[in-house]
C-alpha cells in the first residue's frame, strides 16, 4: 500500500515537473522512488494487511508487486532514451507510473471493483502510450486497435462481474467465495459470469482466440512501450487472473477448466507457430509473448500449490528476459533502422556483448538450462503434471520446440550470418543493464529457490 501511494504520488509529482521545471531531476527521482517503493513494499512482507476490504497486501501481492517494481526499474533503466526524446516527457512519466499503480492494484485486489479499476488504470495509459508516437501511423493504429478491442473486452468483463454480482450479491472475492461455498445451488448466471470474466481476463493476457490485438499492438507501439506491455502488463494481468480463478473461482473449477484447457493449447500453438514465419523481431516477440501467456495459463490451469510460485517465477524470468531482448532490439533497430532478423546478421562479430546477452536472453525465453527461463518452464510443467493434464504437457513440449526454432533464428543470424561489420554504438548504461540482466538470468537459473520459496 505504501508503495502504491508512493507510486501515485510520483505520478502526480512528475506532472508537476513541467510546471516547476525540474524535468532533469525527474529521471533520477523516479528511479529513487521505485527503489524506495521496492523497500517499502518488501516491508509489508508477511504483514498481510487488508485495506477497506478492497485490497490485501498478502505475500502474493507483495511478491508480485516486487516483481513489477523490479521490472519497472529495469524498464526505466532501459527506456531513458524514450523519455528524453519526447516533448511530453512529464506526461509520459506520469502515465507510466499510473500504469504501475494499476498493475499493483491488479495484484492486490480483493474486490471486483478494484480489479476493474486496476485493469482500466493500467489499460488507459497503455492505450495512450501505445499511440504516443503521434505522427507515426503504425503507432496510431496500435493505440486505436488496442483501445477498441480493450473496451470491447471490458464490456464482457463487466457483464461477467455483473452476473456474478447478481448471483452472489457481492463484489468482494471473499464473499463471493463464501456464497458459492454455502449455496445449495449456484445460479446458472454465476457460471456465465465466470466464463465472461474468463474472456475478459484472457483478453488482457492475450490468450487465443482473444490474442489478435497483441501482435499488431506490440509491433505498432513504440518499442519501449511494447516492452512494458510484454512484461509489466502481462505480469499484472496474469497475477490478477490467478488471484481470481485459482482462489475465488476454484470451487467451480469444473465450469472453466476445460475451456481454459483448450484456450491454453490454442494459445501455445498459435503463438509459437505464427512466430516462426515472422521477419520482424519485434513482431516475433509479440507472438512469443502470446505463447508465453500460454505457458503461464498452464500454471493457472493446474490450480494447485505450484501455480502461484511458478507464475511468480515465470513472470520474473520472462520479464527480465524480455527487457533484455527488447532493449537490444531497440538498439539494433535504432542503429540500422529496421528490426528485421537480418539486422542481427553478424552481430556476434561487431558487438559480442550484445550478441552474448541476446543469446542468454533468448535461451532463457526458449527455456534452455541453466537459464531462468528453463526453471520457469520446469515449474510450470511440474504444476501441470501434478494437475494431471498430461496432454497439455505434450502440447507444451511441442510448442517449446517450435519456440526454439524462432528464437534460434536470431541466434543463428547473430553468429552465423555475415553482417556489414559496423559496430553498433551502445550506451554505457545499456551495457550495464544488459550485463546485470544476463547475470540475473543465469543466477535465477542456478538458484531459483530464492524466488520459488516466497510463495
Amino acid at each position: 500500500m505504501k508503495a502504491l501511494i508512493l507510486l501515485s504520488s510520483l505520478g502526480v509529482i512528475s506532472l508537476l515537473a513541467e510546471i516547476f521545471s525540474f524535468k532533469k531531476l525527474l529521471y533520477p527521482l523516479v528511479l529513487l522512488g521505485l527503489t524506495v517503493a521496492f523497500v517499502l513494499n518488501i516491508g509489508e512482507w508477511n504483514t498481510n494487511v487488508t485495506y477497506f476490504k478492497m485490497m490485501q497486501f498478502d505475500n502474493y501481492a507483495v511478491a508480485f508487486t516486487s516483481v513489477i517494481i523490479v521490472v519497472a526499474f529495469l524498464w526505466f533503466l532501459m527506456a531513458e532514451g524514450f523519455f528524453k526524446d519526447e516533448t511530453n516527457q512529464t506526461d509520459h512519466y506520469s502515465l507510466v507510473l499510473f500504469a504501475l499503480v494499476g498493475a499493483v492494484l491488479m495484484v492486490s485486489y480483493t474486490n471486483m471493483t478494484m480489479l476493474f479499476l486496476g485493469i482500466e488504470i493500467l489499460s488507459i495509459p497503455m492505450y495512450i502510450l501505445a499511440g504516443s508516437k503521434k505522427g507515426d501511423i503504425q503507432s496510431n493504429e496500435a493505440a486505436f486497435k488496442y483501445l477498441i478491442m480493450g473496451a470491447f473486452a471490458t464490456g464482457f468483463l463487466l457483464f461477467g462481474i455483473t452476473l456474478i454480482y447478481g448471483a452472489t450479491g457481492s463484489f468482494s472475492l471473499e464473499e463471493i467465495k463464501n456464497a458459492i461455498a454455502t449455496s445449495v445451488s449456484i445460479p446458472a448466471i454465476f457460471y456465465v459470469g465466470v466464463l465472461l470474466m474468463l474472456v475478459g481476463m484472457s483478453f488482457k493476457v492475450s490468450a487465443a482466440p482473444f490474442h489478435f490485438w497483441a501482435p499488431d499492438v506490440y509491433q505498432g507501439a513504440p518499442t519501449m512501450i511494447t516492452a512494458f506491455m510484454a512484461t509489466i502488463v502481462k505480469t499484472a494481468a496474469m497475477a490478477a487472473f490467478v488471484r481470481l480463478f485459482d482462489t475465488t473461482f476454484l470451487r467451480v473449477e469444473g465450469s472453466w477448466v476445460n475451456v481454459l484447457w483448450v484456450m491454453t493449447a490454442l494459445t501455445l500453438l498459435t503463438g509459437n507457430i505464427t512466430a516462426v514465419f515472422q521477419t520482424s523481431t519485434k513482431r516475433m516477440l509479440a507472438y512469443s509473448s502470446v505463447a508465453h501467456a500460454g505457458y503461464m495459463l498452464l500454471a493457472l490451469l493446474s490450480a494447485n500449490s505450484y501455480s502461484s510460485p511458478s507464475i511468480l517465477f515465470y513472470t520474473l524470468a520472462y520479464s527480465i528476459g524480455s527487457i533484455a531482448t527488447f532493449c537490444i532490439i531497440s538498439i539494433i533497430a535504432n542503429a540500422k533502422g529496421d528490426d528485421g532478423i537480418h539486422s542481427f546478421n553478424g552481430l556476434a562479430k561487431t558487438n559480442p556483448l550484445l550478441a552474448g546477452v541476446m543469446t542468454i536472453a533468448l535461451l532463457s525465453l526458449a527455456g534452455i538450462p541453466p537459464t531462468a527461463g528453463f526453471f520457469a518452464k520446469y515449474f510450470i510443467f511440474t504444476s501441470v503434471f501434478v494437475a494431471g493434464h498430461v496432454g497439455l504437457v505434450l502440447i507444451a513440449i511441442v510448442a517449446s520446440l517450435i519456440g526454439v526454432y524462432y528464437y534460434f533464428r536470431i541466434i543463428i543470424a547473430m553468429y552465423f550470418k555475415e553482417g556489414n561489420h559496423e559496430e553498433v554504438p551502445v550506451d554505457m548504461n545499456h551495457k550495464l543493464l544488459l550485463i546485470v540482466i544476463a547475470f540475473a538470468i543465469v543466477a535465477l537459473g542456478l538458484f531459483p529457490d530464492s524466488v520459488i520459496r516466497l510463495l
Partner: protein
Amino acid sequence: MINLVGLVPLLPLIGFLIIGLFGKSLSKGIVGIIGCGSVLAAFAISLGIFFQLTGQAEKSVTIDLFSWITAGKLSIPFSFLIDPLSSLFLLIITGIGFLIHVYSTGYMSHDEGFSRFFAYLNLFIFFMLLLVLGSNYLIMFVGWEGVGLCSYLLIGFWFKNTAYNNAAKKAFVMNRIGDLGFLLGIILIFVTFGSIGYHDVFEQAKNMASGNPVLTSITLLLFIGAMGKSAQLPLYTWLPDAMAGPTPVSALIHAATMVTAGIYMVARSNILYTLSPIAMETVAIIGICTALFAATIGLAQNDIKKVLAYSTVSQLGYMFLALGVGAYTGAVFHVMTHAFFKALLFLGAGSVIHAMSGEQDIRMMGGLKKHLPITHITFLLGTLAIAGCPPFSGFFSKDEILANAFENNKLLWFLGVLGAAMTTFYMFRLYFLTFKGDFRGTKEQHHHLHESPKSMTIPLVILAILSVIGGFVGIPEVLGGKHFLEEFLKPVFEDSSFRMVHSLSHDTEYILMGIAVVVMAASLYYAYAVYVKNKTLPAAENEELKPVHLMVYKKYWVDEIYENVITKPLNFFSDALHKVVDNQVVDGLVNGVGRVVTWFSGILRYAQTGNIGFYVFVMVIGIVLILCTRIL
C-alpha cells in the same frame, strides 16, 4: 617344456614386433634371421612339448596366463591348453612355418616389402599358434580372426594392385561370414554350458543325450565358421582368389595351416559333433560336395596356383568328409599329410613361377624338368603323394578317410573315390603340362629359366621327404603297421570313440585300397595319355569351349552368381536404403515436421488480417463457443 608354452606364440610375436617396428632400418639378412629364428625357436619348444607330452601320463595341461574377460559369471581366462591335438598342430605350424620362412628369404629376396612380409608371416604364426593353443573357444576365435587378418594383409601384400586388394577384401569378408556363425556358436556354448573353456564344456556335453537340438545348433554354428575358414561350399570362393598373395603365403596360410583351422576346430569339438548326428551328416555332405565340386573345377584351370588352390579346397572337403563320418584321427592325419604335400606343391609352384619370372599360366610352361631338376623331383613326389599313390603319405591318410566313409555310407565312399580320381587327373595334368613336353613360353622366359636358390630348394627337399614318409605315422593296422597317430590322439577323441568302431573286415579294406589304387593309376594313365602322349594343350583363352568344359573352366560362374545375387543386390539395396529410405522417408519425415510447421505458420499468420472487424468477429465467435459449454 610345457611351462614354456607361452614362449611358443610369444617368440613369433616378438619377431613380428621387432621386424614390424624396426624392419626399415634392418638389413634383409637380419630380418630373415629374426623371422626364421623366432619360428625355429618356437618349433624347438614345440618339439620339446611334444616329447614331454608323449612321455607323461597327464595328456592335457592347461596353462593360465592371465584373466582376460570377466562379466558376471562369464569369465574367460587367457590360457593355453596342451594336449596331443594342439601339440601336433604346434609342430605342423611351427615346422612347416619355419620351412616356409626359410623359403621366403629366397623367394621374396628381391621384393621391396621384404621386412613387411616377414612381419606379417610372424604375426600369422603367432595367431595360428593362439588358435590351436587356446584353452577355450574365445582364444581360438582370437587366433581365428587374427589369421584372417594376416591372410588379408598377405593376400593384399602387393597393395597397389586393385585386383589383389579385392581378393584380400573378399577373403576377409567371407571369413567374417563364417566367423559370425562361429561367434554365435561360442555364445550359445556359453549360454548352454555357462563356460566356454573346452574342459568345462566337453565334460558337461558328454552327459547330454545324442541329438540334443542345442548341441546341433552349436555344432552347426561352429561349422559355419569352419566353412568360412576352411573354404567349404558355399564360402570357398575366396580361397582361389587368395592366390593373389605371394606364393609362400599360399603354401603356408592357404594350404598348410590356416585353412585347416576349421578341421582343428571340429576335431577339437569332436564330442559335440559326435553327439549331434545331424551336424555330422551336414559336415560330411558339405565336405564331399566341396571335394567333388572343387575337383571338377580344378580339372580345367590353367593357372598353376589356381589348380593347387582348388585342389586345396577339394582336399579340405575330404577332411570334412572324414570329420563327418567320425574319422577325427583320419581328418587330422590328412591335415598333416596335406600340410606336407600341399606346402611342397605350392612351394614348388612358387619355384616354377620364380623361374618363369612371375608367369603362372601352365599353357606357357612345359619341359621345365631339365631346367628345374630339384623342383621337378620334389613336385613329382608331392603330386604322387596327393594323388594317393602308395606308399606316399597321401595314400594312408586318404585311405583312412575312404575306409571310414565306406563304413558310414557307400555312396560317400564312391564319391570320394571319384574325387580321388579327379585329383589324380588334374594334378598330373598340372605336372605334365609344367614339366614335360616342350617349353611354350617366350624366349625371354626361356633364357631366364633357372633353378631356385638353396634357401628355396632345401625346404622343398625337406617337405618332399616328409610327403613321402609322413604317412608312416598312421599305417593302418590292416597293413600290419601301427597307427601311431591314432594312439597319440586317443585322449582327445576318447569320448567320441564309440562312433569310431572299426567293423570293416580286413578283406574289405584290402578291396577298398585296391580299388583306390587302381582308380588312381587309371586316372594317372589317362592324364599321361592326354597330355604327354597326345600332347594336348589346354584351350587358349579365346578358344570356344564345349558347354560342360566352359562351365567347369568358368568355375560354374559361382563368382558371377555371388556378384549378381549378393554383392550387387546388397549395393543396390544399400543405395536404396540410403537415398530413399534414409534421405526421403526417415529424414523426410523429420524435415517434414519442420516444413509442416513452417508452412502452417505461413498459413496461420494470415489469420492475423490486421482488420479490427475480423478480430472482433473471432472474439465473438470464441465467446459464443465458450458459452456453448454452458448450454450443451
